[in-house]
């Protein structure tokens, strides 16, 4: 028998901190100066676009990396996503330039 878990009340959700594991590749990695880190953005950051906007306020290295935000691609948990995609708790988010393999 499958019992569905009831939705958690909002006051409980608010207590959860959204820790994101970030990974950077190619020139995004070079401009930020590291390949990965864990960050806890404020509660109102829920999408990739919002995360980029917040990161750009976190230092010159992020400003440089995300200067051409339209060029940057993102993945959540190793799947390509659009800037409007929602980031879940404990997600792995990656930022990189358009791919050039093959």
């Amino acid at each position, binding site marked *: 028998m499958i019992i569905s878990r009831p939705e958690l009340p909002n006051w409980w959700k608010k207590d959860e901190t959204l820790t994101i594991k970030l*990974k950077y*590749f*190619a*020139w995004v990695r070079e401009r930020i100066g590291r390949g990965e880190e864990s960050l806890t953005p404020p509660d109102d950051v829920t999408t990739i676009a919002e995360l980029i906007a917040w990161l750009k306020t976190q230092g010159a290295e992020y400003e440089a990396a995300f200067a051409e935000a339209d060029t940057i691609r993102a*993945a959540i948990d*190793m*799947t*390509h996503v659009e800037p409007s995609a929602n980031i879940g708790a404990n997600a792995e988010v*990656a930022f*990189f*330039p*358009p*791919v*050039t*393999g*093959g």
Partner: protein
Amino acid sequence: MSVRVQEDDFDLGAEVARLTAGKHQIGAIVTFTGTVRDTGGLKSMTLEHYPGMTETALEKIEAEALRRWPLAASLVIHRFGTLLPGDNIVGVVTASPHRRAAFEAAEFLMDYLKTEAPFWKREERPDGAGWVEHNQADTIAREKWAER
């Protein structure tokens, strides 16, 4: 049916022999090899990738090829690390009873890999290094496979 992401070189002849051994329903085998092209003064090329996502992305692309064409065997090998002009970068093998499926599937695998697999090329030249820019023609090549 497999994908491999590796630093080492590969031998597609040996891979074809292994993939097709005993499979006598195969009538057509297509292989594609992509190599490091020297556009003038290239010393080396370094391929960076996203371990974990790379394998997942290639497996997804291969699964889609298998869904679209009746392949009896397939293989995608992609290298990473520092390579020299003329070195192998990527190898694709597709085998099918008839040639059209094998040709089309190999082209499809390459077109998708070029736009979906998380690899980035950095060219090292005597006067410095730079990241290769995405070629818009690759995105257009992939769009022709969109299902109508």
